[in-house]
Every structure is written in C-alpha cells, then in structure tokens.
C-alpha cells in the first residue's frame, strides 16, 4: 500500500486524537468551574488515558513499519513521554491530588492538543505530496 493511504489514515486518526484532547480540555475546565466532581472526572478520564496512549503508539508503529522515518521521529518524543509516565505508574488521574496537579494536567493537555493539530497538518501535507507523487 502506498504512503498516500497511510497518511490519509493518519490524518483521520490524528483528527480523532485531536477531538479526544478537546474532550479532556473541556472536562478540566468543567472541573475548574465545579460542574463535575473530581471523582467522576477521574473515573471518566481514566478510561481514555490508556486508549489514547495506545492509539498514538499504534500510529507511530505504522509509520515505523512503512519506513516513514520523519513522521516516526516526529512522534518519538511524545511516545517516550507517554511510555515514561506509564512506566512510572503516574499516567492515571488521581482524584485526591487532582486539584493540586490540575495546572500541570491542563498544560499537558494543551500541549498535546497543539501537537496533534500540527501532526494533522503535517500528515495532510504528506498525504498530498504522496498522492501527487503517485499520480505523477
């Protein structure tokens, strides 16, 4: 299969991740304005933490298998960051600490949001480049 299809898939995929992050951001601001209590918030968000990491890792794996080195390298830092968190077992949101750690969680979420957004455009660009190259 061609790189065009891979990047098309990646574009859709990162759009999905993007929406996931928007959901996280909304939830955190809900917590700040007291629309949701920390226990519910953590129960809800914790369901999505590992799937999100997994999804991101899967995408990186696809790039690796297809030999898309630049795209893969672009994803390595986040992959390492996530892996480190899981390894240290602090990837889950802790309801007892959430208010103390909220600013850092928010910062992290915004950062990931930006990352997926950039990824989205990068994959889009690569998809177009690949499709043009295939047609030519």
């Amino acid at each position, binding site marked *: 299969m061609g790189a065009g299809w891979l990047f098309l898939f990646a574009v859709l995929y990162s759009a999905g991740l993007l929406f996931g992050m928007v959901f996280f951001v909304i939830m955190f601001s809900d917590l*700040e304005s*007291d629309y949701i*209590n*920390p*226990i519910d918030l953590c129960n809800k968000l914790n369901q999505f933490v590992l799937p999100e990491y997994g999804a991101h890792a899967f995408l990186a794996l696809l790039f690796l298998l297809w030999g898309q080195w630049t795209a893969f390298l672009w994803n390595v830092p986040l992959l390492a960051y996530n892996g480190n968190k899981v390894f240290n077992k602090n990837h889950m949101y*802790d*309801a*007892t600490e959430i*208010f*103390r750690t909220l600013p850092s969680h928010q910062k992290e979420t915004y950062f990931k949001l930006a990352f997926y957004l950039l990824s989205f455009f990068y994959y889009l660009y690569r998809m177009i480049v690949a499709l043009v190259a295939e047609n030519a």
Partner: protein
Amino acid sequence: MATPAEQLPPGWAAEWLTWNATETATGRTQWEPPAPQGGVAPYADNAPTGSPPPAHHHAKRRQYAAGQTQAYYGGGGEAILDPGYLAGQADSTWGSAALYAWQTHAAPGVAQPQYYAPTTEPEYINQPGYGQQQPATYGQPVDNLANQFGGMGIAGQKGFQLYTTNLLTSPPDPRDLQIPPPEIRLPPNSCISPSPTANSDPSYQRCTLNAIPTASSLLGKAKIPLALILTPYRSLKEGDEPVPVITDTVIARCRRCRTYINPYVQFIDGGNRWRCCMCNMTNEVPQLFDWDQVRNQPGDRWARAELNHSVVEFVAPTEYMVRPPQPAVYIFLIDVSNTAVQSGMVATATRTIKENLDRIPDEDGRTKVAIICFDTSLYFFSLPQGTTEASMLVVSDIDDVFLPKPNDLLVNLAEARESMENLLDKIGNMFQENSIIGSALGPALQAGFKLMSPIGGKIMVLSSSLPSAGAGGLLQAAVPFYKTFAIECSRAQVSVDMFLFSSAYQDVATLACLPHYTSGQTYYYPAFNAGRAEDAIKFAHEFGEVLAMPIMLEAVMRVRASRGLRMSSFHGNFFVRSTDLLAMPAVPLDQSYAIEIQIEETINTPFVVFQTAVLHTTCYGERRIRVVTMALPTTSSLSEVFASADQVAIATFFANKAVERSLTHKLEDARDLVQKSLIDILIAYKTSMTSGGAGASAQLAISENLKMLPVLTLGLLKNVGVRQSTQIPPDLRAYAQALLTSLPSQLLIPYLYPTFYSLHNMPPEAGEIGEHGVILPPPLPLTSERLERHGLYLIEDGQTMFLWVGRDAVPQLVADVFDLPSYDALRGGKTTLRKIREMRRGPYYPHLYIVKEDGEPPLRLWALSALIQDRADVLPSYQQFISTLKEKVSST
C-alpha cells in the same frame, strides 16, 4: 519537689543563685503569659477624662451575656433605626451611657490574663453613622485617643513598628514562643461590634500575615508565604467561652458570594440592607432579623451573636440538608490475629470500648455500633433484639466480601447496650487461642463500609499487623486500594481512624492514606505490649478520648475571602471535592488545616475578611453551620508585612509544606524547600529592611516577631518526620508526618520545639496554682549546655516526655520524685508518674521516659535528640544552622 537548700551540695545552691541572677535581669516573671504593657490601667485613666473607651479588646476571653451587651450599646435600638442619626449628636448620650457600661464590666476583667494590648479600633460612638466614609488609608492617626495610647507606651494606631534583631547575637528564648501573634489592627469603623470576640482567636484561625499585602508583587518581595492555619472545630478547655449558637434559623447571607453575615458588614438604608464585606453586594436584611423568636417580641439586632462573635454556629434549616441528620455510627474493626492477641491489644481495646460506652456521644439515643473482628477471615457479631447473647458469623470468603446477615449487625447502642457489654467481655477469651497469623484488613474495611455506607460514620481500625490477605494486602508495594477506598469512603460520608500497633513493619505511610482523605486520624503505638502498664494506659487513654470526642458528621468546609484573594491549595486531612470545597465525613476535635492564599488582583479595601464555614451534622442529630470570621487589615508597606508576620503560623505552614513535598519528591527536597523558604525570607528582609542591602554584612537580621522562625525551622528539619537519618523506621516517620500535618499550632510548636524545664531549681512559686492555672517553671533553651550533673530535667514535646536525671542527682531529689533511695536504684525507661498533668488540647497522652545520664545509650540519644539546638551527627547545631543561613544570605 523543692529540696531544702541546706541539703544541697554546695555547688548546687551556687548554680541556682547564678542562674537566678542572670534570669532576673531579663525579667524572670516573663514565663507567665506576657502581661500587656499597660494592661487595663488605661481605662481607669481614660474614664474620668470622658474620652471614649477603646471598644475593641482582643482575647479578653470574657463572656458577653446578652444583657450586658445590650447595656453596652446603651439601648441603641432607636439610634439604629434612625438613619439620620448623626454620630455627633449621639456622642454625649451614648458616650456616657456606654462608658458607664464599659467601666462596670471592665473592672472585673482586671485580674484576667491579657494577651494583647488594647487597640483603639472601632469605636462604638461612631457606630450609628451608617453611611460614614471609612478612612481611606489604614494606619492614620484617628484621634487624640490613639495618641494618648501611644504616649502611654501602648502600641499606637500608627502601623506596626518594625524592630530588627540580629540572629547572630540573640539566641532563641523559648519564652518568645508564648508571645501571641502580632496584633490585628483593623482600621476604625471596620467592625460594627465593639465586642472583643468580633475577630477570631488565633486558636481558631490565624494567618501567617496579620496585615495582608495589597498586591501580590508586595507579597512576592517579602517572600513570606500567605496562608491560613485553621482549627475550626477546636476543643473548649475550662474557661473558654462556648461557641454561641443561633437557634432562630434566620441566616443572612450575601446573595452573590454567599458570605454569612458577620461583624464586618455595613448596614445601610437605615438598617434595611447590608453591604457584604467581601463583594460589596447590597443585600436585604431578613425580615425576622430583628425579631426575638424566643420571646416573640422585637429584638435587639446589635445583640445578635453573629454580629458580635467571630465564631458562631447557626442551626441550619432544611435547605442545608440533603437528608435528615444522620445518627452517629461507629464500627470497630478489631484485629484478632495471633500477634494482636498476644500483644494484649485485643483485651485492652475491648476493655476500653466497654469502659467508654457511656462516653460515646449518644444524647438522642440514636448512635449505632458494630464490631467486626478479622484475621484472615471476618467475624461478624449479630446482636438480635431481645437477647443479650451475641452470635458470631464467620465469613472466610474474603475475595468477595458480603454481609452474612442484613440486620442486627449494626445495632442501636442504647438498645443493645447489655449485649454489647457481654460481647466485649467475651471477645478477648474467644480469640485467646487464635493462632492464625495474617490480616485481611482490606476485606474488613470493605465489610465495615458495606455495613455503614447507607448512613456514614466512623470506622475505627485497630490493627497490629501488615495487611496481607485479600484486597489491600500490602505484601507488595504501592497498592492503590487504600487511596481508591478512601475516595469511596469520602463519598459515603465514612471516616476512618487507624490505631496501629505493630512491632514489625506495618506500612503506616500507606495505611495513613485512609484517615488522611477521610478526615480521620492515625494513631501509632509501635511495639505495643499491654503487659507494660504504660503502653496500655497510653492507648486506653487516647482511644477513650477519641471515642468520647463529639465529632462533626457529614461536614463540608469552605473558606471565602474578600475579592482579590483566592484559596489556592489545601493541606490537611480531608478530600478536596471542588476547587474550594473540602469534604470531611467526620471532623474530629483539634485538627488543623492549612490553606495557601493567592493574591489575584490588587486589593483596594482597607481590610479583608476570611470566613470559614463548616456545614455539619452534630453527633446529636442537628444540622449546623459553624462560621469563623477573621478580618485583617491590608497594607502597602513592606515593613508592615514583616512586622505583622506570625512565626508560629509560618512554622505550621512550613511543616505542612515539607510533608507535602516529601510525599511527591524526595525527603531531601522537602528539607531543601523549607530551608530555602527561610533563606528567601531572610534575604528579602536584608535587602529591603536593613541599610546594608545586598552583599556581606556582619549581622543576620530579621524582625523581632520572626525571631523564633529559624529555630522552629531547625526544629522542623530535625523532626522525626523530616530529619535526615537512615535510622528512623519508615513507620515512625510516616506517623510523625501525619502529626505534622494535623496538629494544631498549640500542639505542633512543642512538637517542633520541645519544652525543656529544669525541675531541681524551679522558682519557689512554680507548681502552685496561680491566676492562669498551674504556674510552670521557665522553659529553657534546648541545648545540653543547660544540663547539669546533679539536675533533674523534663523535656516534653506533647508526644513523649523525658525526665532526665543527672548522675549526681541528690538522693533527696530522687527520693522525692521517684520514692527510691538513690540514683543507683533508679531504672531508666518507660514509667508512669502520678504527678503528670495534661494541659494541652488533643487526645494525646505522652509516654514518660526516665533517662539516666549514664543509662542506656539509645534512650539517652533519643532524649538528647529532642535538644534541637545541639549538634547531632550530621544535623547542625543552632549556631551552625544560623551561620549556614548567614553564608547563604550574604552570598546573594
């Protein structure tokens, strides 16, 4: 204990005399609570001249009977109703009437202890002037009265005076710790009540700064942390004024910020409306506010408790309830494994419960109790009505805990009293021969939780081994069970108290999580053995006190503050349920919380108000709101910020901060953080308050009121909870950390800086009953320089006491104290003396150790480690600590 002088060896008397002489120079009587300069005398001086008496008088813990208060206001009813009533007109009539009232009840106050110099704030004479503009700047001279006071040597109105001390030349004096925090000097007219109780006592709520900087940049310059230290549910000792209760359910609150009406609001529109002191919102005064519902007649608004007292309790109407007030529920989880039975814990615990059944709060006869025993199985006891025989139900399936019976497990204490006593008598024998080792604490907790979760209440865990079976087994590290379970508990209004007894490693740090998030408390009795009478007495006393404690149930706490201030983080035993709401399923007495405050925007008001509200159900089935209000002036001057800092509150806050840091980072980071915070304060002081500015200088300057902060910090750094040492068992450390974050300042300060008394050369009046209770000998600085070979010393930190006996102790002294013929007959170690008295708040019953100067080295070392001004291993002495600080400060 005063040994006649002629029996002393010659050197003894001489020592005493020299000591005495030096101390007299500094005013030996100062170890009594410091007398105010001037005391009450000013009133007498003022009265004949006709100048208005100072209306506000802090900490004169005098009861304000309703009648008195009314007299005090000089029947102010009509004046209040008339908005046009001018202050000037009122002067003559009001002045004399109220002056008279003041004199009449100021007189008996003469003999009372006074901790604060009187302030010249709000004068009731200006009271009826509702719309009066407040003076724009705080600290300007108000009238000649202020000057008069200034002339008399009483701290004047003109801001805080900053006195600089050089830490290098002034060694810490433990008596300084008893000095009250810098006085709160509110601008005139900020308080509508002349009552001395209108601002909160430091034992309820205190702030690290008693003058709030108007901008966060100013706070940043001073480097002093801004935090509240609060103990809203403080115990009442003899002589304390009970918290006034407002029973008519007229609760006036601000529409916008939900602040409760307090002495710092302003009445406008002829008293029909009030302006909120936090958000300036204008609110209607409730219709029944001026109506006395008890006597069914118009009442006097100014006599209402919420306008005269900073700490009040409202009886809450049904809008404040999600369900009818719950009964108090106690479930005892008793470890009956082999180790627990062998140590005698089970027997002592059951006996203590039985003896204290009467003391468990049960005024309305609704209190429910249950007992569950556990080793690697669970033993439930069913106490059906009508019989006095309990039947035991064993559940050995601990992977999926279920209740063997739907009812009769949790029984009404009053109804099942007899069978309960029977059962408690039998439990000891029942498990006498139990040889099972292991503990299914997790499943037992789940069972207790299942039993009480529809109601909520208190689970008391008595465990003497490391949890090993079922959920929550701690044989492998870092089990999330206790944290998630704590959250479930908090949701179901269940609070957990841990009583831990193990001689081996028990992972106190993990188990303490549960009390920490459910507003309980951890109690730890390492290597408990009931065979030693002291162990049994200590545990029985503390457990009994905890049982008898009138707890607050189903509580939520919220702290509100004036605009521009935000509560940014919370320390203590509770669960943070929303950005500013603290959930506490059961609030024990005398638990302290610390709250960091952020200045978000520039404050333009002359004073700010902090209000803590605790909505709770009393254990007598009444829904109540306890409201603690504190007003503090604002300031834009850095010197006032320094001069108003409260060293005790700062030290309390440091302790909380250090423990928090040690949980998320390394212990070393916690120590560094504390030391760095202290150095920052010193640098800030040096660069902005002394002429030297930056660079090296010969002194280490700090303001007089922060003089003890370095030694308290050193005490914290040397405390078992934070100390640098590889020899402290992790369990002891975790317990010390639990104490550091929950003890109120009154207990925490001796825990950081133990009190050290010399008993063989006490002044003659010590030990007698004086005006303020027993007169104590003067505390000494904590250094072994003070230890003499023939002396007898008491070192006490609230948790342990050491009685140090010098090797040349006079036989008569030994005979008087211990009833033994000579020093050689004396044995070191844990003992009980009948002469011990407990004066502090809290349930703690300290162990007493007798330490012989040539006794066992470990005990000696332990006792000496309490002398924190000395060098111990790698830990610096006070002198070294101060010179390190100086180096760090100079190098910037």
